[in-house]
């Protein structure tokens, strides 16, 4: 009997091991084949891919109402615009790398000579330029009868340029200049033949809008009444950091917003993830969802601070124009939405200073704010700095200064005093809070009582200083995406318990101190 069993066992073992061996061999072969199939696509030979999608999207507005010569059609303008912007792009790329790749397609021979001289000189001196243009307003002056020569004046080209020697940043040039440009159609490409920088023009100051929210004397005003911003950072309990996904649940939001209003708060802060919304080509369905949220807030009499560019982290100067198109889509759509209190350009951008370069981040914020002002002149703009020390940057650009505070409460008074003395604009404590996590990772310290204690002190401090605030956050969360705090379980565990309400929606002791 046992002998027979043994035999069966060996048989099974043999067959199974044979099957496993085969599977492994097949897997190995397929991996090798898959590897051999990766790499350059054959269509890449034609270089048709190159620059097919617009790699560079500054705001460009054509005026071709008064053209001498042949009249211009929008189709012709599209082709010219495409090549003109690509000319700027390849020029900037060439000046950054000091290589001439691509410029032959967008500059005629004689223009190329001039560009080449500066590239060679800079290469010799190890100077390179990181630059972008942000807006163009070409006014076409002349179009030849045969449709192959065009002259226009590109007015008030807003440019940003970092000048490097090796790795040292020598200078930042920000200017608004006018160029007179002659382009020619040669073998299917519109190429720049002449380009002449005209004397600097002062950019017309963006007229300050007349929105319902205004800033006067370090205070926020709503319809000419002093406005005490009492708010909370909001994510739905079930879908934190994924508010506009497939599980978009307006009903639950209506309940949540009612709860927030019921606590006596008047504002929520929500986040618009950059990539999820489609980067430079914002997805209309996402905008529709955002509009529903804003309409709901309006209905529940809540104001909204909309934080843009969540999880954006590129900041490369040549990528800026894409982010501007993203902002344009959003801001032009909601420029008159009555629920919006302010646009928060980016959440905690100072955390990217180290990895992306403080100059890149600050330059991006500055230019983005300038662009945003043109799209939504009636709304306020702020930046959500991660700590009071960072909140001193860009004071001139923002309407009010937002900072986050997660340091121990004891240090708040001194930090606030410091900031209040330095800043001449309204201050908003845009995020603060404490996790009620109590467990293995902090040796069962903390807990709900400690959290409530913290918020009691914050409550008093806020009232004493008449400080506008937005607490973090409404709910405890079940799961935290890795992109938020990384993958370490102790961080995630900590982040899950910042809520005033439990995952079931029950108030925690701290909720007492959220009512004002």
């Amino acid at each position, binding site marked *: 009997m046992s002998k027979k069993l043994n035999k069966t066992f060996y048989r099974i073992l043999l067959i199974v091991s044979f099957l496993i061996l085969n599977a492994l061999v097949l897997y190995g072969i397929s991996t090798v084949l898959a590897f051999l199939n990766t790499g350059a696509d054959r269509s890449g030979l034609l270089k048709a891919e190159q620059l097919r999608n617009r790699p560079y999207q500054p705001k460009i507005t054509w005026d071709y109402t008064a053209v001498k*010569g042949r009249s211009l059609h929008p189709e012709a303008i599209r082709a010219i615009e495409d090549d003109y912007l690509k000319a700027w792009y390849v020029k900037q790329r060439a000046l950054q790398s000091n290589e001439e790749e691509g410029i032959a397609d967008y500059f005629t021979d004689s223009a190329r000579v001039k560009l080449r001289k500066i590239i060679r000189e800079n290469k010799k001196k190890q100077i390179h330029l990181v630059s972008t243009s942000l807006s163009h307003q070409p006014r076409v002056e002349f179009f030849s*009868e045969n449709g192959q020569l065009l002259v226009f004046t590109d007015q008030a080209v807003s440019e940003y340029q970092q000048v490097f020697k090796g790795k040292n940043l020598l200078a930042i040039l920000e200017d608004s200049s006018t160029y007179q440009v002659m382009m020619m159609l040669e073998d299917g490409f519109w190429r720049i033949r002449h380009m002449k920088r005209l004397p600097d023009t002062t950019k017309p100051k963006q007229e300050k809008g007349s929105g319902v929210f205004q800033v006067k004397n370090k205070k926020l005003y709503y319809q000419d009444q002093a406005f005490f911003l009492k708010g909370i950072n909001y994510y739905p309990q079930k879908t934190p950091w994924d508010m506009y996904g497939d599980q978009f649940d307006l009903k639950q939001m209506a309940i949540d917003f009612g709860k927030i209003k019921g606590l006596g708060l008047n504002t929520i802060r929500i986040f618009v993830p950059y990539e999820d919304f489609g980067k430079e080509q914002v997805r209309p369905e996402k905008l529709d969802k955002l509009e529903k949220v804003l309409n709901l807030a309006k209905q529940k009499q809540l104001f909204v601070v909309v934080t843009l560019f969540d999880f954006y982290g590129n900041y490369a100067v040549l990528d800026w124009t894409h982010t501007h198109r993203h902002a344009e889509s959003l801001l032009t759509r909601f420029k008159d939405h009555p629920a919006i209190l302010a646009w928060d350009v980016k959440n905690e951008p100072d955390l990217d200073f180290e990895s992306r370069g403080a100059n890149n981040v600050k330059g991006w914020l500055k230019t983005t704010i300038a662009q945003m002002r043109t799209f939504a002149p009636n709304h306020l703009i702020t930046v959500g700095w991660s700590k009071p020390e960072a909140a001193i940057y860009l004071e001139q650009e923002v309407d009010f200064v937002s900072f986050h505070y997660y340091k121990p409460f004891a240090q708040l008074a001194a930090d606030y005093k410091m900031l209040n003395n330095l800043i001449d604009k309204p201050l908003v404590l845009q995020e603060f809070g404490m996790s009620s996590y109590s467990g293995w990772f902090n040796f069962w310290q903390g807990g709900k009582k400690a959290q409530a204690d913290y918020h009691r002190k914050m409550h008093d401090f806020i009232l004493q200083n008449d400080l506008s605030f937005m607490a973090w956050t409404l709910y405890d969360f079940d799961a935290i995406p890795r992109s938020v705090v990384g993958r370490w379980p102790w961080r995630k565990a900590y982040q899950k318990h910042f809520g005033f309400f439990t995952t079931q929606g029950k108030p925690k002791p701290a909720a007492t101190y959220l009512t004002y």
Partner: protein
Amino acid sequence: MMKTKLYFHNGFLFFYGLMLWLLFGACTSPAAEGIEIHKNTSQPAADLILEVGTKDSVFLVLKNTWGTTVITPSQRKASKVYFSFPNFIKKTAGSLRYQLHTENKLLESGSLNIIPSLDQPIQLETYLGPKNLEAGSAQKSMLIAIPTDAYDNPLPNLTPVVVTYNFKEQIITDTLFTSSLLAFKTIVPPTQTGQINWVAACQETTSNELFSQIYAASPVDFEIAYNQTHAFADGNQVIEWYTSVLKDVYGNTVSDGTLVSFEIKNRLDEYTKIYASTLNGVARAKAIHPEEPQTWTVQAQVANLAKSNPVQVYFKSAVSEIPVIYNAAQRSLKVGPILGYMGQKVPEGTRVSIRLMNAAEVVFESMATTRNAMVNVKFPANLYPLKEYALELKTLGAIKTLKIKNYE
């Protein structure tokens, strides 16, 4: 306290622009104090040199149309620092932006305007287009002249450019003034065909001769006629159609090579198209006579622009009788000699259609060709076992039917 210095750079002169002097106070005074900038737009400078007095090491960031570069002082004397601009900066007209920096401080910024040089011979680029025009059309021809200085900088607005053009016996000179980097002259094409010769000149520089060609406009309706040696449908002779001289509305003969299509409609309402292009306004098309008597209706047209009158041609039958001898013993059929309208033998290869029928069923069908006006066919007994057949012969419009009887 203020001193200015002018430097000549290695023997060759530059003709751009402006001079800028930055003069600091005494070397002990702080950098921000007492900076004065002098700009002189009226007088072309021999060289571009900046003079700066400071203790710290300084550099100058220069931005023009094509890019930005950084230069360091070429010379340092006591409290003064001299900058010499590189050639490619000096040679590019337009606004030049500068920033004067110390290691960690921006001291001064501003811009100067470099103007094109007018002292050296200028260069003139000319473009003419469209070069081919229709007489009297609305499409204009345009001559564009782009005068630049020796360093390829477009000259300022209102630079005079003289354009001369000649058509037939007329020579016209016109003085234009540049704006938007160029000067241009448009011409509405005359109603006569011919060539316009152009030349542009700016100061002492003249362009090459340029031509724009005026071609005839679209042709108007025309007539056709034909030539043929005889009117018999012999499938051999050639008929030739020709158009009247095709002209446009102004009486200009159309360009050689204008394509004319001749559409032939035969007795079965089938169309045949023959294309021919014009030479001196006349297009000629040829076709072989049909093999059957019929009437052709021919009309010529230039694609959707102009057409001719329809012309009818009648072709008579070329053969009246088909002689046939059938040898029942050898089962061989001898057709011919087939003779034409003058009793001549029909041409070699004339097609003869042969059909052998048994009651309603066709058992043999062939298209034979004549040799020496004859056609021979055999109907072997093993393939055609029956005794009686009906035979039908057709050639050049003539038809003959006969009964075949075999005796075996």
